[in-house]
């Protein structure tokens, strides 16, 4: 046994319990979820196998389609807005402004607040009878209307608004760290060549910040797929079902409606959706790049 092999054995043994934990806790529960989704379980797990019946019912449900569409709209908008806004804020902070520390803290602050509180605060602000609309009316602008929250077709944008408020601070912090990691010589070189700074950002800095942006995208995606508390606090899935999301759908059927068969079918579908989107992307981003590098 060579020196390096022995060292590897030691570290393998050390890491073994964690592997068992990970396999048991994550893969095991995922397998259980998939298994339950193929049974006729209602309030309690049952072992009666019904094939894909739960999935058939799931895809026949209008509510599930609304929920997945909402996730798509919410996810894409939130992602795009947070990335753009976070980047712009980071650029602003990076340009040697005064009191950077204070501004940074203020912008990052919303992230320290939970989604539940965020949801409640925005619920009050967006409520036409007590919030922003009421305030502007009392300032004398009587025609002003800001009733996103109570209209089924716009309520999802209210969610995006609250989400952006909460999430862009974190993106800004990450982007700022990325910007600070860029070699200052590049800026000097660009200045000598007389390139305008917006062009430097767009053509040089952004491509160089690829790893940072990927981190942001991954972090955002995670919180988007599992978004639940924000919806519950801000809209309760309403008006009607207009802001329902898959996580709320799952929680409703898992607990209040005592239908764990259908809920686990929804969980599994969500997992497959995530895998379908992320596996190819992950492969392109990481695996291929590594092969090329070595």
């Amino acid at each position, binding site marked *: 046994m060579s020196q390096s092999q022995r060292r590897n054995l030691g570290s393998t043994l050390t890491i073994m319990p964690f592997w068992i934990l990970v396999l048991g806790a994550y893969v095991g529960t995922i397998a259980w979820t998939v298994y339950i989704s193929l049974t006729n379980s209602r309030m309690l797990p049952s072992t009666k196998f019904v094939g894909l019946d739960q999935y058939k019912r799931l895809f026949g449900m209008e509510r599930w389609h609304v929920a997945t569409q909402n996730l798509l709209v919410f996810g894409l908008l939130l992602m795009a807005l947070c990335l753009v806004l976070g980047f712009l804020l980071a650029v602003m902070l990076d340009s040697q402004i005064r009191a950077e520390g204070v501004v940074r803290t203020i912008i990052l602050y919303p992230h320290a607040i939970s989604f539940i509180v965020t949801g409640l605060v925005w619920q009050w602000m967006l409520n036409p009878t007590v919030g922003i609309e009421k305030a502007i009316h009392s300032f004398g602008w009587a025609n002003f209307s800001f009733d996103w929250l109570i209209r089924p077709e716009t309520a999802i944008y209210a969610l995006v608004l609250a989400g952006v408020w909460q999430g862009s601070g974190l993106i800004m912090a990450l982007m700022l760290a990325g910007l600070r990691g860029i070699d200052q010589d590049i800026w000097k070189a660009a200045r000598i060549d007389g390139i305008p700074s917006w062009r430097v950002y767009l053509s040089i800095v952004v491509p160089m910040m690829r790893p940072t942006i990927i981190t942001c995208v991954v972090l955002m995606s995670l919180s988007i797929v599992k978004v639940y508390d924000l919806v519950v606090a801000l809209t*309760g899935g309403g008006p009607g079902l207009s802001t329902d999301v898959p996580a709320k759908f799952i929680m409703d059927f898992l607990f209040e409606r*005592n239908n764990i068969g259908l809920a686990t079918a929804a969980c599994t579908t969500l997992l497959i959706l995530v895998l379908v989107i992320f596996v190819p992307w992950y492969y392109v981003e990481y695996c291929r790049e590594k092969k090329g590098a070595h």
Partner: protein
Amino acid sequence: MKLLTHVLSIGMVGAGLLGTTAGHAQASEKAEVIHWWTSGSESAAVKVIADAYNQAGGEWIDNAVAGGGGGKARSLGINRIVGGNSPTAMQFNYGKQLDEIIANGFVRDISALAEAGDWENLIPGELWNSISVDGKVYGVPIDVHGQTWSWWSLPALKKAGAEVPNSWDDFFPTLDKLKAAGITPIAVSRDAWTIDSMWRFLVISKGGTELFKKIYVENDTNAVESPAFKDLVATLIKMRDYSDEGASARNWNDSTTMVINDQAGVQFMGDWAKGEFLKAGKTPMEDFVCTPTIGANEGYVYGGDMFIMTATDDPEVKQAQDLLVNTMMSKDVQVAFNKVKGGIPVRNDVDTSTLDVCAQTAIKLMASPENQVGDQPFYNSTDKIGAIRDLLGTLWTEPNPSVDAFTQKFADIISAE
């Protein structure tokens, strides 16, 4: 025989002979009880049971779980039962929620106690069916709650120059008057179940007891496709015009507060809303009017709460459960509890003269079996009820609701499985 004497002696404790028999009870019979009564009047009501239990020699360990209309408390309780760490007792609503955990043997059969207390002759027949499966009793009924009441603010009506409508012909004119007086006619809340309360008020009150039973008991699709049903849907759609913008951000009790403060004319809600009125110092028929129906139809859609005792082999736990069951069923507790909670006692042999006017109306209605209408959970799964609520919630908010599309979807839901 020994068991019987034991049961009887505890029965006497429950019957109110606290002083004489409390000495027999073991030092402390601990009972951990999971329930979801957390609002002001609710927790005051649960304290009534807890105090009576402690006085009878037990030790009440309170485990109140807020939120989700009881969904969270139920899932916590069920998880603990399945996980082998059962509470002594837990709360359920009447209905089918319970069937599955009974079938799995998680609930203690309390038929002996029920027999000793002669429950079968004391409580409504439909309720008896709901707490028992195959002749065995599993639930301790604690209250009967009317699910579909209307609560009218008298000062608001007076300001609008209107009265509580006597017929459905007067209904919309009354709302119009309220609207003209600058009062929000109907206080609506954001949750779909509150829309469902309003809807079932319409079904029982405008549609009638027979239609209600055809829809929810028999799941009859012909009744759903009838003109009478479509008329109800059209009425509900028309009622949307009498709500206000703030509805989508209100909980049910915020809407009740609007009626209490005379900012709204009427709210359609179960009789737990009464607790809010009483807490605000309002008197029924002086400050507000409660009526379970408008017009000639009579009927009382009821549901309510019960407790189940978890299955156990531990004699000490059983003893604690026996004491708990008899405390909950005792006349004093039934009356005192419901006075605070807003419902009516399940027993027909108690003195109800101390209850308020609204409760008297309910007791009178519940006295005749043809008026007793068990609410949807008696006959429908939570899944089906949820699907109906999704449908109603959507109907209430979508920009262009269609009566026919709604009817079709409603028929699909009730005919499923």
